[in-house]
Each structure stands twice: as C-alpha cells, then as structure tokens.
C-alpha cells in the first residue's frame, strides 16, 4: 500500500468520523453515545494513520470500521419490525448512506492493506507534486460525499448560512412584540 493510498484512507476516516459526530449530535441518547464514540475513534484513527504512516490496530480496525454500518442496519430493521418504514429509522438515511459508503471504502482499504506489504514511507518526498495531486483528489472525493451528508444532519438543517456569519442578528428578532 502506497503513501498516497494510506493518506486517502486516513482522509476517508476523517470524513466518516465527521458525519458520525454530526449525526450523533442530533440522535437519541443511546445512539448519540455510540455514534460520537465511533466518530471520535475514526478521527483519532485517521490522525494516527497520518502521523505514524502505518495502519494502527490492523486487526481491530476492520470490524470497527464496519460496526457503524451494522448499527444502521439494526436501526432500519428495528424500525421496520416496529411497523414503520426503513426511512422512518432514527438515523437519517442520506448521511448514514454516505458514511456507510466511506466505511466500506475503509474496510476494503484495510482488507487490501492486510494482504500487501507496507510501501516505503518516502513516497511523498520522491514525487511531491504527484502526492499532492492524489491527496487533493482524495480530499475532493471525500468532501463531495461528506458535505451533502453533513447538510442532511440535524446540525445541517439548523446551520447559519455562510454569508451571515458575523452579521447583525437584529433581523432575526421577532417582529411581533409580546406586549407587557
């Protein structure tokens, strides 16, 4: 596994961690604890992979990467079993589908890494331009999945539009006075 592919796996782990944290922030307490835990673990694992340049906890990482997909499957199954539709599950469909796609990518990358010897660490130094291009394309792919996923979470629906950061909040005040 090359330096670039390790780094792209780390970026995917950061992306899926962000989605799980955002979904967890607006979920019922039990699911929130699990998803925030997964999110923190995924962010930490991604950072560790970037810093150390090798897969951290290679045996535990694969089942842990796929555990949130299983959790989402259980959530949908429980929703259907209770008489609702899969779309009425506690976890939002769009963000969890995007996160699951990234989880499967991570799982595939981890399975591939188990079967291949690690490549030398100096690949980024040998061809920095090519390495940067790979990282930028990887980051754009991850951001392309993660940005709409984040927008579909509770945090996304309540987000302040970008152009209004740091602007006056006077317009947001209620126009009807409640009276004294």
């Amino acid at each position, binding site marked *: 596994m090359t330096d670039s592919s390790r780094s792209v796996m780390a970026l995917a782990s950061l992306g899926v961690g962000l989605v799980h944290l955002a979904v967890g922030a607006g979920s019922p307490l039990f699911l929130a604890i699990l998803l925030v835990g997964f999110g923190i673990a995924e962010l930490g694992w991604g950072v560790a992979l970037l810093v150390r340049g090798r897969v951290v906890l290679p045996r535990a990482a694969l089942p842990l990467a796929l555990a949130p997909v299983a959790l989402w499957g259980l959530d949908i199954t429980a929703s259907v079993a209770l008489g609702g539709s899969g779309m009425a599950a506690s976890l939002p469909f769009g963000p969890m589908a995007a996160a699951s796609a990234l989880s499967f990518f991570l799982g595939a990358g981890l399975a591939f890494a188990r079967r291949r010897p690690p490549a030398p660490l100096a690949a980024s130094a040998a061809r920095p331009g090519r*390495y940067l291009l790979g990282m930028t394309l990887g980051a754009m792919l991850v951001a392309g999945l993660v940005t709409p996923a984040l927008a579909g979470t509770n945090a996304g629906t309540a987000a302040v539009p970008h152009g209004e950061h740091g602007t006056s909040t006077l317009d947001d005040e209620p126009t009807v006075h409640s009276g004294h």
Partner: protein
Amino acid sequence: MRNSPNRLLATVFGGVYILVGLLGFAVTGGVGFIATEGNLLLGLFAVNPLHNIAHLLIGAALLIAGLSNVAAAKSVNTVVGAVYLLLGIVGFFLVGTALNILALNTADHFLHLASAIVLLGVGLAADKNTVRNTDTSARVHA
C-alpha cells in the same frame, strides 16, 4: 521548495486564499462589514468583508510559512486544517450558532472542507524525515 509537499501546498493555498480575499473585496465593495448577507464571488462563493479578512490572514500565514521553511509550512498546514475541523465539530453540538461552519451544502463549504482535510492530511503525513533531520542538525550545530 519543490521537494517538500508541505511547502508547495502552503505556498499554493496561501496564494489562492490571498487572491480570494482580494477578489472578495472587489465584490463586497458597497457592502457594510456587519450588515450584509454577503455577495457572491465568481457567482458561487458567498463572501462578506469578515470572510475576506479571514481569507487574507489565513492566506498570509500559509504563504509566509510556505516561503520560509519545511517545519513552518508543516506546522501552519496542520494548525489551519485542525482548527477548521475542530471548530466545525464543535459547531455540530452548538446548532444555530455561527460556529456551525461545516454542515451546509454549498460550494464554499465543499471547498473549505476539502482544503481543511488536505492541509491536515499533508501537514501530518508529509515531510516527517525532513523536519526530523532539520531538528537533529540544528541540535548538532547548537
């Protein structure tokens, strides 16, 4: 500079951020600092004067670090990427506030997220040996 991914990235991103900041002032010329919803840069990116200043400051930090040395570029790339992602994560738990900077589906959020993870990724992963060698040689000369 050509041999260091961090210096290359910091210099290119620094230049782009400064350009975006300057172009932003061109489209927000008649707009007040705090009384605006922002105008569109290149028809896509919402900016207001506060954003322009943030873009200029971040661009200047990246460009200076990129033109200086590997250690500075690596540090600034990592810090800018990490701070942006951490602010975004805090925003998930403080919905309805201006800290909620990641969870919107617009062109500028896509670019911000992509640039943040590239900066953090390259800052943490690349130039490890170069920085280690620089530290060691500095210690030997001291």
